């Protein structure tokens, strides 16, 4: 069964601009897919569809299916449990006063017991390397720490699919390395929207290129990103890391 199945997804903004024009793709469980595209290509909009935040009025037409179930108004809870979304701006997602409270938010909404909640919080914080940060105020964290706290908050819900919107932007080189190392250890299906082409090469076997709301390429990361003409055509570029590899 496909983890994600998107069929002919269309979406228009309030002002009429077409953000998504008939997007189709499938993701198998365990795959790690990079979603690439220039700014404004529709990456974030697409990601918001994956856990039912868009469209504003879910109609259950089956354009987006998670593990075979079409997203519909009555199964939003289940969908959101299965798909964990890490937002682009960590300040939007870290809305609780302390780190522990924020990571506990998801499990609390799931109705788990106090004991289970603290176990999950502990485990999630350990996974992202933030053990000991429980009582830190969220607005006092560094940018890298905020991003890790956001990931912890999502991991605490134990999702089967992890969706990340530009997780390494604004991070310093060490922060980026550490975050990538963390992502590598997670076994869930991963969809990562990113400008970090090197991360795409390192983590994601498959890449999808989005341009003006349409998928213009979908295949092996190495093949797509080595195709300089393709990359430049869609507002991207061939990453330096591939300039030094032997063509095969």
């Amino acid at each position: 069964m496909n983890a994600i199945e998107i069929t002919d997804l269309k979406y228009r903004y309030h002002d009429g601009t077409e953000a998504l024009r008939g997007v189709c793709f499938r993701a198998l469980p365990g795959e790690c897919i990079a979603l690439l595209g220039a700014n404004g290509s529709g990456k974030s909009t697409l990601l918001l569809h994956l856990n039912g935040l868009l469209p504003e009025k879910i109609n259950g037409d089956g354009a987006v299916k998670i593990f075979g179930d079409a997203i519909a108004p009555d199964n939003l809870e289940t969908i959101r449990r299965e798909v964990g979304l890490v937002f682009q701006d960590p300040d939007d997602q870290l809305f609780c006063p302390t780190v522990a409270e924020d990571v506990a938010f998801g499990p609390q909404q799931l109705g788990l017991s106090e004991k289970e909640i603290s176990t999950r919080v502990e485990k999630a914080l350990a996974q992202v390397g933030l053990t000991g940060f429980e009582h830190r105020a969220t607005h006092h964290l560094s940018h890298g720490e905020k991003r890790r706290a956001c990931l912890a908050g999502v991991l605490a819900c134990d999702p089967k699919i992890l969706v990340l919107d530009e997780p390494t932007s604004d991070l310093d080189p060490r922060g980026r390395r550490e975050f990538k190392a963390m992502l590598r250890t997670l076994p869930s299906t991963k969809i990562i929207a990113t400008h970090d082409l090197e991360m795409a090469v390192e983590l994601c076997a498959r890449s999808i290129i989005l341009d003006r709301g349409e998928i213009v390429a979908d295949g092996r990361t190495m093949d797509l990103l080595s195709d300089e003409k393709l990359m430049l055509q869609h507002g991207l570029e061939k990453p330096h890391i591939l300039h030094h590899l032997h063509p095969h």
Partner: protein
Amino acid sequence: MSVHWPGHYHGAGDNLVRRLPATVKLGVALGLILVTVLLPPDQGMWYVAVAGLLFLEMIISRISVLFLAKRLLLLMPFVFGVVLVNALAPTGRVNWRVLAVKSSLCLLTVILAANTTPFSETLRVLKKIRVPALLTTTIALMHRYLFVLADEAERMRRARASRTFTPQRRFQWHALATVVGQLFVRASERAERIYDAMCARGWK
């Protein structure tokens, strides 16, 4: 973080006062204020006792005198003004000395209580005394995003200022105009993203 306003007192580390549960600290502070305000003016000894207790608290919690003085000074103008008016035009019911002493003591009590209690604990106390959830959530969100918005405002103001070459006064109003309006629009868009983030983790 913006430098405009004095924040929480940092750097006192762990001490007896900090370790006291928030409920105790806030409860005692409230009690002190209540009695100070309601007491008739001739109870001089009480005021001395309260001052002594506050002094003790200040020593134990290692909050610097300078910090306290600065905070008091910031809040004093209104106090000063009213005390002055009372001194010049006595009402016959309240004496200006009593006014000054009472308000200063109460101010110090709250300053000390607030700076030895993290805000998240204060929130917890509010929840415990059954303040409605809608209000506590709003308070929590306000506190969380206060600094974020203030920083955003400062950045916008600076960016605006760096492209303005008119003399001081006019530029200030113009900068204010652009920044304040934009700030609210940005705040409302952020609020919607926060709503999405809350829903994404199961909030109903």
